[in-house]
């Protein structure tokens, strides 16, 4: 363990960190684009099967990453329905898997935030003659700091999971190796300094993200009540 601090000088370590962030941030971007409107629509909409949809969405927050990985693997494999895209064992496949994994988290958490606000605002907005899309946008804007928490929860989940990226990415050195899969591999190989170094960076990123989310919400609470 004497060479432990030296692992932070290896360009290899930082290449892995950068790829991890690229994959997870892309997945969060796509999942946010789809998840926020989906969550808001379920929060505000009244349709048959709404209760079941909410239960399903909440349950999907606990999707096991390996199962998502397996499903995406079957979709993208040569014989699968989307095999022609040639995405398997590329960062693109990892983005697809993580997007599916965190979409329910972002949709379910934003559904909750929007619905709570909607219950409060609905009558007042209708009294002012504000309805439909305009009312939805007003509420989304008013709960924007809660939505940030939902998005960061998704990012935390994406950057910390191993199973999905391992299966669809294949943990190929320099191509699809991210922090979590590298930690798993290096630990089994006995290269503990590198595994530990990556672990510290990973925890550091998750900590910084959560601290940022906390501070933004605190500031918003003080600023806007």
């Amino acid at each position, binding site marked *: 363990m004497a060479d432990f601090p030296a692992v932070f000088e290896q360009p290899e370590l930082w290449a892995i960190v950068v790829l991890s962030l690229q994959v997870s941030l892309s997945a969060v971007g796509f999942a946010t684009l789809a998840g926020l409107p989906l969550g808001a629509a379920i929060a505000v909409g009244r349709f048959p099967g709404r209760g079941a949809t909410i239960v399903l969405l909440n349950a999907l927050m606990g999707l096991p990453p390996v199962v998502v990985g397996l499903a995406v693997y079957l979709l993208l494999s040569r014989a699968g329905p989307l095999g022609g895209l040639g995405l398997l064992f590329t960062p693109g496949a990892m983005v697809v898997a993580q997007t599916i994994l965190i979409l329910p988290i972002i949709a379910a958490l934003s559904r909750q935030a929007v619905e709570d606000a909607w219950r409060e605002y609905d009558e007042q907005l209708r009294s002012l*003659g504000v309805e439909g899309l305009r009312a939805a946008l007003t509420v989304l804007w008013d709960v924007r700091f809660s939505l940030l928490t939902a998005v960061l929860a998704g990012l935390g989940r994406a950057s910390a999971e191993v199973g999905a990226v391992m299966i669809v990415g294949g943990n190929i050195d320099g191509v699809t190796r991210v922090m979590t899969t590298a930690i798993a591999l290096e630990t089994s190989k006995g290269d503990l300094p590198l595994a530990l170094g990556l672990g510290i960076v990973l925890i550091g990123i998750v900590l910084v993200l959560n601290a940022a989310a906390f501070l933004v919400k605190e500031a*918003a609470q003080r600023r806007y009540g």
Partner: protein
Amino acid sequence: MILPLRLEEVSFSARGRAIIAPLSLELGAGPSTIILGANGAGKSVLMRLMHGLIAPTAGRVLWSGPNTRSKQAMVFQHPVMLRRSALDNVIYALKAAGIARHERERLAREALSEVGLLAAARTPARVLSGGQQQRLALARAWALHPEVLFLDEPTASLDPSATREIEAVIRGFDASGTKVVMATHNLGQALRLGDEVLFVHQGRLVERAPAERFFRQPGSAEAAAFIKGELPWV
């Protein structure tokens, strides 16, 4: 002019339970009307039916003129403020009512000044005290210059001094020619602010009378019991 407002055999029930029994009445412009009754008597529901927030199960709510939405306003028991400044909350309402952009800020400032909140114009609305938020809700209604203002127990969760301030603003509305329709279970408030009383009991309109006469000589046993404080509280 959207008044008079007519309710024709209006009833409302939820989950099979009748909340408002078939009821007909006409509200004209002029003196303020107090909807008085115990908690759960149906005051709020009756007011929401009039304001159009809920649709009657049967019967019709008829206004006399067009564009009824922009000519009426409602202040709720718990004011709902958007997460923006006091001024911007009023401007939001003006925008929703279709007021031209260059007019909005001036009208909003006038309304804030009317309720004594001009100094707090830039303060985030949700940081204001309960009484201030309720005054802001009144300013938001004032800025729209509604023909009819509905007030649903506007002081039920306020302390006596905040209540006095709110009542002063409501009297200002009344003096400016807005028709004030207020629900309350507070007898003192009904006497202070009401010109006529609609007494509601268990979803029925039991009595309609000038306030002074209602309190001196109630025409129904229920109203007499309510005034004496003997009415079972549900």
